[in-house]
Each structure stands twice: as C-alpha cells, then as structure tokens.
C-alpha cells in the first residue's frame, strides 16, 4: 500500500476534493475515494461513536459499519441532505441501537432542578464554579467525569447534545440529522446542559 494514514489528515492532497467529486468516486468504486472517505470522516465518526458508547472497540466497529453502509448504499444516496449529515445519521442510529442493548443504564431526570424555584425565584444559592482555575478544566479527570455524565443522559438529550455542543453542528444540521424541529432540538440541548451543569457543580464545588 503506497499511502499510510497519519494524524494530520488536513495535509492530505485529496482533502481538497468537494463532496460531489467524492460521491462520484465512491459510485465508481475508486480506491482514492475510499481513502478520502476515511481520511476525512473516520476520526469524526469515531469520536461521535466513542462518546455514545464509551468503548474503543465498539466505536471502531461503528466506524466500519457506517463506512461500509455508505459505500454499499452510495447509489441510493439522494442528495437531499449533505453526505456527512447522512453519515452522521447512520452513525447515530447504529450507536443508539447498540446503546439500547446495553443493560443497567440509569438515566437522570431534571426533577431536582425544577424544585430549585419558588414563585419563579431561585431558592438555592448557586456557586460560580466557572471561575475555578483553568488547569482544572484542562484535566483529563474532569473530561472523564463529563463523559461519564454524558453517558448517563437520556438517549434523546445525549444525541442532540453530542451533535450540537461536542461536534459543533449548526442548529440546522442537528435538526436535519435527527429529523427534529428547532424548538425540540433546542429544548433537548438545553436540558442536557442543565443536567451536566448540575453534575459538575455537585462534583467540584458542593
């Protein structure tokens, strides 16, 4: 094999190809197109799957399944959405299917959060942990804890949160990928953030 994958995928000459060229290459079963597909998307898909499932091996399997589906079904790709929205939708669905087979997941609710108000006024003093030293926020331990909290989110909140806040999708892209209305999407991301904020506060300042 003449080309080996390295960590700097942006340096790949093929990364300058546009989506239309990539789709044509995939349809014609060109190896450069497979390579481009992997160069451009496998890390992103892996990251998403890993955040859903928390296991390296399972996330790798999801990447392989998604790319296999893309290669097999590229003829049926209608172009109603972008290629990557289509890929992410497959990745989300595959990840959710796996999550549903995992037993013993305990999800959290926002009931406690709702009880923070009386007559619409906060009744509990909120500590401002956002001013904690920056070194703390860079620590792996904190990100591991955050990942654990994300794992415990209800599935619908987790999906919207991962695409919007972690993957940095625009609102339109999240709505297209998950086939959600904007208000529903915003509500899910907001509720996810509230739960995560609460958990970070409990862990680090209470």
């Amino acid at each position, binding site marked *: *094999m003449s080309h080996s994958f390295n960590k700097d995928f942006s340096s790949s000459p093929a990364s300058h190809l546009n989506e239309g060229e990539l789709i044509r290459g995939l349809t014609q079963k060109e190896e450069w197109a497979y390579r481009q597909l992997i160069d451009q998307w496998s*890390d992103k898909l892996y*990251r998403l799957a890993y955040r859903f499932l928390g296991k390296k091996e399972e996330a790798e399997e999801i990447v392989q399944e998604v790319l296999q589906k893309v290669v097999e079904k590229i003829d049926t790709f209608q172009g109603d959405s972008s290629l990557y929205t289509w890929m992410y939708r497959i990745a989300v669905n595959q990840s959710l299917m796996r999550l549903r087979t995992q037993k013993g997941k305990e999800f959290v609710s926002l009931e406690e959060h709702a009880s923070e*108000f009386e007559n619409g006024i906060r009744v509990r003093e*909120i500590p401002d*942990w956002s001013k904690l030293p920056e070194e703390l*926020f860079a620590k792996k331990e904190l990100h591991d804890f*955050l*990942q654990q909290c994300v794992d415990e989110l209800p599935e619908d909140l987790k999906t919207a949160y991962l695409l919007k806040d972690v993957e940095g999708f625009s609102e339109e892209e999240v709505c297209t990928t998950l086939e959600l209305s904007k208000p529903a999407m915003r509500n899910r991301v907001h509720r996810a953030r509230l739960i995560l*904020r609460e958990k970070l506060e409990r862990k680090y300042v209470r």
Partner: protein
Amino acid sequence: MSVKTRMMKWMFRMMGLPTCEEVDQFAYDFLEGQLDPKTTHQVKRHLKTCKNCHRFMESYRKTRSLGQSPPSIALDPEFKEKILEFLSRKGGA
C-alpha cells in the same frame, strides 16, 4: 422563604424583568444569540441584579464550552488501513 420569593417576583415584575425561572428557560437562546433584542436586554438586566442567576449563567456557559473542547480522540492509523482494505474488498475497488 415564600414571602421573600413573592417579593422578589413582584420586584422583577415591577422592573419589567423576567423571573429566575424564566432566565433559566432563556439560557440556551441567550447564549446562542437567538433572543430578540428586547428580551436579551431584560435578561442582561436580570443578571446584573441577581447574583444567583449570574452565577448560573456563567456556569451554564462554561458547561457548554467544556463540551466544545473535549480531549482529542482519533482512530488508530492501522485500523484505518484495515477499514480501507475492508471497503476495497466489499466495494470491489
């Protein structure tokens, strides 16, 4: 507690400001710049008046930014090679 909260609610109403619970509900739209200018102004005024909501908003903002800056995760380059071989076999490249 209920007398105090009733008075605070009345005060916010008199000032034409949202309550803490409404600020909480506006948090997403506020940070994403989706609120209309009038409501944005009212939320900002509430945040200046109410320390608790100010702290809430700052920590909510921090929660969002922590999600946006996760540690980098990447696939093993060898695994990418395996996927390429797999796709080439399946697709017949």
